[in-house]
C-alpha cells in the first residue's frame, strides 16, 4: 500500500461496520494426538464468492487445513451467509476481509475463491498477508494493488479456465503462472476435485518459506 493510497482511504468514509460470521477450526479441535499445532505455519483465512460464505468451507476445507497443523478460518462478507447485508461494494468486502484477518491470531494466508479472490486481492493491498491464494478468480481489478509485505502469490484454476482472459490477466498482474486442478471451478467445496485442489494449496503453503 502506498502512502498516498492510505491517505486517500483514511479520508474516505469507512464502510458501515457489520457483525461478521466467522468460522474457525484449530488443530486442537481435531482431538487427534498425531496432529500438532505448528507454531511456524501461518494460519489461513478463506472466503468465497459463493453466497453461502464461510459455511461453504465447513464441509471439508477447515478441517483439512487444520489437519496440516494450521489454524483455519473462513469469513462471510456483508450479505453472505450469516453476515447481514450492509452498504458497500468491492471495497467494503475487502474491508470485511481485512477486519477478519486482523482477528486471526497470527499473520494469515488469504485464500479467495471466485469473487472472493478479488476481495482477497484488494485486502492483500492493505494487510500484509503471509501469502495470497487466488482460486478461480473472478472480477479481480485489472491492476490489483501490489500486495503489502511482498507475500508469495498462488493462482489455481480449473483445467477449463487455464486459457481464459480472466486467468491470463490475473497471472500477468502478479507475474506468475497458474496451477491447475481437475474439476469444475464451482465444485471446489467437496468431492475428489476439492481434495486435489486442497492438496495442491497445502503443499504450496508448506513449500513456501514464510
Amino acid at each position, binding site marked *: 500500500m502506498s502512502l498516498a493510497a492510505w*491517505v486517500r482511504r*483514511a*479520508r474516505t468514509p469507512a464502510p458501515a461496520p457489520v457483525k461478521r460470521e466467522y468460522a474457525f477450526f484449530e488443530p486442537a479441535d481435531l482431538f487427534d494426538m498425531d496432529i500438532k499445532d505448528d507454531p511456524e505455519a501461518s494460519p489461513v483465512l478463506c472466503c468465497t464468492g459463493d453466497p453461502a460464505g464461510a459455511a461453504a468451507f465447513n464441509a471439508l476445507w477447515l478441517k483439512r487445513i487444520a489437519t496440516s497443523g494450521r489454524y483455519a478460518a473462513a469469513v462471510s462478507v456483508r450479505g453472505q451467509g450469516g453476515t447481514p447485508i450492509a452498504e458497500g461494494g468491492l471495497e467494503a468486502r475487502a474491508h470485511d476481509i481485512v477486519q477478519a484477518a*486482523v482477528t486471526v*491470531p497470527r499473520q494469515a494466508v488469504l485464500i479467495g475463491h471466485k469473487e472472493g479472490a478479488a476481495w482477497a486481492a484488494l485486502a492483500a493491498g*492493505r494487510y500484509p498477508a503471509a501469502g495470497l491464494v487466488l482460486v478461480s478468480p473472478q472480477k479481480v481489478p485489472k491492476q490489483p494493488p501490489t500486495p503489502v*509485505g511482498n507475500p508469495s502469490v498462488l493462482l489455481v484454476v480449473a483445467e477449463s479456465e487455464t486459457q481464459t482472459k480472466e486467468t491470463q490477466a490475473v497471472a500477468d498482474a502478479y507475474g506468475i503462472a497458474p496451477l491447475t486442478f481437475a474439476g469444475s471451478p464451482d465444485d471446489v467445496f467437496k468431492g475428489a476435485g476439492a481434495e486435489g485442489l486442497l492438496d495442491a494449496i497445502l503443499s504450496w503453503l508448506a513449500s513456501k518459506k514464510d
Partner: protein
Amino acid sequence: MQEYSSQAAYDRGEAVCVIGAGASGLIAVKNLRENGFEVDCYERDTVLGGLWNPQNQHSPLYPNTHLVTSRSQTEIPDFPMPDDWPDYPSAAQMLTYLTSYAKHFGLSEHIWYGSEISHVEPVDGSRFEVVVKPAAGNAARRLRYAAVIIATGHHWSPNLPSYPGLDQFRGTVLHSSQLKDPSRLRGKHVLVIGGGNSGADIACEAAVNAASCVHSVRRGSRHLPKYLGGEPADYALARLNSRPKFLRRFLTDRLLKGPESLAARMGVTAESRPSEEEPVRNGRYMEHVGDGSIQRRGEVARFDGFDVSFADGTEMRPDLTVLATGYRPKFTSVEPRLLGIEGDSPYPNLYARMFSPRKETLAVAGLVEPGVGVLPIVHWQTHAIAHWLLVRKSDPERAANFRLQVRSESEQDAGEPAGTSPRHRLAVDAEVYLASLGRIIDTLEQEPAK
C-alpha cells in the same frame, strides 16, 4: 570503553537494533522484519506497549485516558483496529490493540525485556556497539549491530516548572503522570497547571470528581471538540485536505466557526495559527467552563506555605496541585551530537525528523507531534527507514543521492520552531510532513537504474 565489561562484543552482523517496545518500537520491528532484516528489540521495562501500558513504570496515563485522535486516524495503516470499537478508544483498548499487533506479527520473540540500553557507540564506520544494562547483578552485555533505531518515546521525563516557593510548598504537588488513581481527586480542591491535552483532560476529571477545580494556563491555546459536523473532528478536518485549496479555507472556517465562538465566549483564545501546534482535543472542557465546574485562571506567580498566588493577584489554597506541564525529550543512551542536539536544548535536529545528521545507520522513530495520530506517521517513517537501509546496502550511488534529497527536505522544514512554546519544537504539520515522507519513500522504492 573500560567502564563496560572487558568481554568482546557479540557481533550480530547485519541485524538491526531497535530500542524501546512502545508503539513506535513495535512498528519498527514489524516493518524491518517485513523487509528481511533480523531485529533485536530492547525494552527497559518488563512489558510492551510503552506509555499505553499502565504497568510500564514510566506510564503517563491518568484516570480515564482516552485517545484524543479518532480510531481511523490513529490505527496503523496495515493493521486496522476492530471496526466495532468506539471512535475514541480508551487507553486499555489501545494496549489491547498494540498487544494483538505484536502477537499477530510474532514480534515478542524479538524483544528483550528488562533490558535498558545504556550506551550506543559508533564503531567501524557505520556500525554500532550497544550496551545492555544488566537487570540484576550480571555484567553488562555488549553487542554490535549494522544499524540502530531509537524508539524510546518522549513522554516519560516530566517537564517540571519552577515557581518561587514551590520547593517549600506544604500542599501536595503531583505531575500529571503521577496522578494515576481517580480517587485522589475526590472531594479535593484541585489546581491543575498546564493547558495541553493532559491539563484539559485532568481538569475535566476534577470537574466531576473534585470539590472544586481551578485550571491555570499561562497562555491561550487552540481547542477542538472531538466531533465536528457529526464526524470525528480530526477526520472531518483531514477530509477537507482533499478539497481544492480555495475551498478548503472556506470549508474549514465554516466547520470551526461554532467551536471557535464558543471558545471565545469562554475566554479561551488561540495565539497561534492552526497546524503550528497540537490543538487541545476535548469535547467536555468548554461545558465545564460554562457551568463553572472548571474555573480558569492565568499564570501562577508563587507558592507560599499552603497557598498559591496567581499573576492576577488572586489566591487559593489547593489540597492537590497537578502539574500537567508536559514532558521533555530525553535520550540517555546516545551522544547528543549524533542526534543533532546542540547547546542546552533537549531537542534533536534530525533529517526529515528521523535520520541522524551524523550517522547514516542511526534513526529515531516517533519523535514528532503531528497533531494527528502518531502511529500511522511512525508506520511510514519506519517503512522509509527500512527501505533506506536496503538501498544503502544494495546501491551506494542511489543512497548518496537520496541523502541529498533528505537534506533538502529537512532544510525546507527547518528554520524557526513552529508555535510559540519550546515544546512545539516537535510539532509538524501532518499534511506537509506526510507529503515529505511520501517523496522520500517514492525515491527509495524507485527501481534502481540499470
